[in-house]
């Protein structure tokens, strides 16, 4: 069966979600992953958007986190202060999706600058909600293409916290969230080991450990039992292609 890298990542991310999870979700692939999970194994998933929307029921594919289709028919809409304090800081968010230009060995993310902060070589969008999502969501997932420049050993700037210099260091800070639980790439899945270092725990069908190692900026280790992910099913692909993104806005191309 043929599928794109985006479809593969979206389907694997969807499988990580549990029924009943309250997910702080951005647009793009995380939004598709949540909607896919709702239509398959997690019908009771609750989607929360940082724009203040809870329990969205979009009737079309939202093209920004502020798309009005997220509001019409939602359970609740609240202000920005409430969504970050009463929902996220209070601990009502189970899952956060994160992305960024760089993810390092310990799952720290840079979405701020490449180069020096005060004289940036590349100025990136910045934190948005991610600094707090990474800290306070119970579990975080990252979806990103597997490329060496995206996986440096150390990020240029820690926009949001993974395990810092190791799991013990994050735990010592007392932040409530458990940190990144998985990074889904087009080659496989990375998960933190007992020290919080990201190691390869699964490969997608056809991908090799060498490919993953080549595209990672630190000496990537594989889990003792390296799994192979189940390939996307026909039903998963049908839902993505026919129901969720019929125009292929997010899923076509790569």
């Amino acid at each position, binding site marked *: 069966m043929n599928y794109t890298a985006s479809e593969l990542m979206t389907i694997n991310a969807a499988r990580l979600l549990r029924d009943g999870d309250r997910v702080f979700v951005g*647009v793009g692939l995380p939004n598709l992953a949540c909607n896919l999970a709702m239509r398959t194994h997690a019908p009771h998933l609750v989607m929360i958007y*940082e*724009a*203040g*929307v809870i329990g969205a029921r979009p009737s079309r594919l939202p*093209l*920004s*986190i*502020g*798309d*009005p289709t997220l*509001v*019409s028919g939602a359970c609740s*809409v*609240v*202000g*920005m*202060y409430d969504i*970050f*304090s009463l929902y*996220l*800081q209070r601990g009502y968010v189970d899952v956060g999706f994160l992305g960024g230009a760089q993810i390092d060995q310990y799952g*720290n993310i840079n979405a*701020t600058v490449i180069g020096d*902060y*005060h*004289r*940036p*070589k*590349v*100025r990136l*969008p*910045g*934190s*948005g*909600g*991610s*600094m*707090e999502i*990474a*800290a*306070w969501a119970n579990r975080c997932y990252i979806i990103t293409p597997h490329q060496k420049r995206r996986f440096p050993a150390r990020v240029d*700037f*820690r*926009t*949001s*916290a993974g395990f*810092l210099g190791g799991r013990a260091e*994050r735990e010592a*800070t*007392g*932040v*409530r969230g458990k940190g990144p639980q998985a990074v889904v790439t087009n080659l496989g899945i990375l998960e933190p080991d007992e020290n919080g270092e990201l190691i390869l725990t699964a490969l997608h069908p056809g991908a090799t450990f060498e490919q993953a190692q080549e595209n990672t900026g630190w000496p990537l280790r594989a889990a003792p039992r390296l799994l192979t992910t189940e390939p996307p099913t026909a039903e998963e692909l049908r839902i993505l292609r026919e129901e969720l993104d019929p125009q292929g806005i997010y899923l076509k191309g790569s």
Partner: protein
Amino acid sequence: MTNKLCSLNEAIAQFVHDGDTIYAAGFTHLIPFAAGHEIIRQGRRNLTLARATPDLIYDQMVAAGCARKIIFSYIGNPGVGSLRIVRTEIEAGRLEWEEYSHFSMISRLQAGAAGLPFMPMNPTAAGDLERVNPNYRRVTDPYTGREVVTVPPLTPDVAIVHVQRADVHGNAHIWGIIGEQKEAAFAAKTVILTAEEIVDEAVIRSDPNRTLIPDFVVDAVCHVPYCAHPSYTQGYYDRDNAFYLEWDKISESPEETQRWMEEWVYGVKDRTEYWQKLGEETHRRLHVRPRLSHPVNYGDY
């Protein structure tokens, strides 16, 4: 309660001054583009532009040379990619900036709105933004001895807040994504309200729980239909996603940007002319069918 109805042209002329700190409110919704364009037309300079998400409105104002500094928590073209002009100006060292997370940014407004000297937030363990921005500080919680992170109040000289409906005094009903509209209005020293509809006071008073902004924090009320295009107003018109994509191309070239500005900002008198110029195809494309709220009963006590 006094009648504060005036044209947007008059409101900007009277209340927005060179060097002011402006907060054009609206988190991905109700972005007051018409006010940004009027500020460009009136040639304001050295403004500090504060917004969680600068969006295209600040990209355009920066391109027009209105800004000295930008305060933000996410500079992107929402749903599209990079916010090219702001980004270029920062990378070139021509634009000062001050940066927060979304929660810190709204906490600053909340502190300003509540008259508090700071707002506390739980630490996030990500130290780098705290390190580069001295406005982040720490305070010891007097109960547990643990630290919280603080930000100081943001009290803009002018907040510009777009709303669905308001009366002539400035009592405003807002629905859909309400973002930081209320906090910006209470935090600011001066408030310019733009409204899709000016309604009778009785409409406002039929549903007081919907009034997020009371008249007495408002200085000017401007009737500006379609104020938020290419952003949107819930229930009134859709987001013009095609333009957000188009801007990604326009803003790649300074010449194209200036050409666009000549045609769509300097080349039109006001929002009415702008909207007419957009043409019927666009009007049709952004039209939205009604979906009404179930009313509630306040009771005739």
